[in-house]
């Protein structure tokens, strides 16, 4: 590949006036402009999302995302119920990775109250969080290839592994998807030795699965032809637009909250952050693939080192939980990017303000920039490579 490598120099910053708007594209005038609504019921929008697209031939000259088809008033509901009551609702935000949502919320509340989390619980959180990342990245790759028209085979393989991991979630937390597992100051139940053993077994099988995935996809010419050079995101724009997660790292920006904040006990583990040089769909796909391997490394370390001990802060209260007045913003590196919770407490049993900082929504900010000038078929791919879940976009 010979084209210019994208360089990221955060020190330069953005100085041009109005540079951060998507350019306005004029139709070529060779034919009519076709206005097409993709969504809300569209096979490739991962649910109920709509893109109003204007096409000049097959080239996209305008694209406006329309949200809100899954706006379930999560924030409003949370302001009307106890802190604990919102925990199961966080499961339903990004419904592929419920455990990281739990974690982010628990982290924000712990920031607000200053509760301590026992060591074993921290390890369990890391294990579950990384398993969730494996599930998310594998299925997001699967969905991406599905959108490319691979009649579901990679998705099936991804879901085959997902089932194994969901069995683990179910055995520990009682539910496949909506785990509702973490609590303020720890985790709800402890993992048995048998569970840890089963997890080790599943984790031992994961590298084989990633090998299979890479064999199937990595050097596939069709995939490379479709993905490379498509939907390029400049790093300076990515930073300015608040893009986070694999999408940002594919653009070459080294920013992983696990490293930056070192929340939980992440600074104890050895892992690397893969970075892309082109910021296109292929880089995003590969960054997820490589992050799968890093997650497996973290899992192996965590499963080796997990200590015995309690999983709940002894002082933690389940009923009658009333944090002191104040506010806190807690964030984690969820599989899709920075997932933050912003809480304002007025000292009552319910949060006064409860806000989710959804990575999926904010990552979509640059959707139009990435799609302009591309083919309609690429829109679907670019959209898939952003990896969103509507539950989180619309909340």
């Amino acid at each position, binding site marked *: 590949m010979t084209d210019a490598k994208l360089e990221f120099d955060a020190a330069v910053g953005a100085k041009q006036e109005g540079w951060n708007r998507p350019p306005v594209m004029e139709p070529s005038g060779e034919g009519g402009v076709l206005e097409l609504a993709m969504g809300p019921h569209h096979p490739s929008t991962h649910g109920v999302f709509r893109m109003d697209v204007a096409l000049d031939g097959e080239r996209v000259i305008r694209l406006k995302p329309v949200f809100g088809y899954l706006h379930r008033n999560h924030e409003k509901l949370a302001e009307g119920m106890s802190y*604990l*009551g919102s*925990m199961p609702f966080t499961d339903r935000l990004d419904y592929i990775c419920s455990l990281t949502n739990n974690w982010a919320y628990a982290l924000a509340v712990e920031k607000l109250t200053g509760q301590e989390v026992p060591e074993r619980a921290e390890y369990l959180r890391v294990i579950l969080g990384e398993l969730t990342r494996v599930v998310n990245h594998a299925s997001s790759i699967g969905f991406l290839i599905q959108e490319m028209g691979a009649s579901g085979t990679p998705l099936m393989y991804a879901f*085959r592994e997902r089932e194994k991991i969901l069995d683990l979630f179910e055995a520990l937390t009682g539910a496949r998807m909506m785990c509702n597992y973490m609590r303020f100051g720890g985790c709800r139940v402890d993992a048995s030795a048998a569970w840890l053993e089963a997890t080790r077994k599943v984790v031992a099988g994961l590298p084989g699965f990633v090998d299979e995935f890479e*064999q*199937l996809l990595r050097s*596939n010419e069709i995939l490379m032809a479709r993905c490379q050079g498509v939907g390029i995101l400049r790093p300076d724009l990515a930073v300015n637009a608040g893009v986070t997660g694999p999408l940002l790292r594919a653009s070459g920006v080294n920013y992983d909250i696990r490293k930056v904040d070192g929340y939980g006990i992440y600074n104890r583990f050895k892992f690397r952050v893969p970075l892309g040089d082109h910021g296109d769909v292929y880089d995003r796909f590969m960054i997820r693939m490589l992050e799968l391997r890093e997650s497996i490394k973290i899992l192996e370390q965590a499963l080796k080192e997990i200590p015995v001990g309690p999983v709940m802060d002894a002082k933690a209260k389940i009923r009658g939980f009333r944090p002191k007045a104040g506010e806190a913003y807690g964030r984690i590196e969820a599989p899709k990017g920075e997932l933050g919770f912003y809480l304002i407490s007025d000292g009552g049993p319910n949060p006064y303000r409860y806000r989710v900082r959804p990575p999926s929504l904010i990552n979509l900010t640059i959707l139009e920039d990435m799609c302009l000038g591309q083919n309609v078929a690429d829109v679907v791919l670019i959209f898939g490579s952003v990896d969103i879940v509507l539950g989180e976009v619309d909340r």
Partner: protein
Amino acid sequence: MLGEGILKGLAETARNFAGSFVSAERLTTVQYPEERIAPIEATRDFPFLLYDGSDWEAGMRCVACQICEKECPPQCIYIEKSKDKKPDALGKPQFYPARFDIDISVCMSCQICVEVCPFEAIKMDTEFELSTTDRFGGLLYDRKELAKSNEHYHKIHPTEAAEVDARLAEEKAKADAKAKAAAAAAAAKAAAPVQAAVQVQPAKPVQPAGDLTAERETKA
């Protein structure tokens, strides 16, 4: 060379195709109505009300304290407290739910009702085959439909049920001891910590189900 990756991919799918005829790893389908996935003990679906003994009405542990009703995040529990009291398992007169409805068309299976219940009266069932064509009749469970015996509980969550039983037995013993040594309150107080130190042994799972059965051992 062009086409190499495509051939690699074809080889991979061919391996899976051939493997599906010989290895269970490559043919993961569980043919649902006939075959079932080994039940996982911790599974939760919808809540039920526990009763002891054989009479669901008399043995119901619920004392209609309405904590679960208040804590339930989607507000799907409706309880009416009884006017009178009936003796509970410990022989103490207690209120009981004159009405206890759970709208499972709303319930989100979050288990918070179980967590907050101080009486071990509400637990999670594993039954999931509940689809119905009857919107209003089929999805509102009253206390009779919700009541399930302790044996049922032991069947679906053996480890957890044994723990709960042990805990209840302990409480009952404590209560008995209290009653017996009503005169010597200090002695009773001294006896309690000794009993509390008794380790609860986890029961063996009834149905071994793969690697994931043994679950939720005694809390350390």
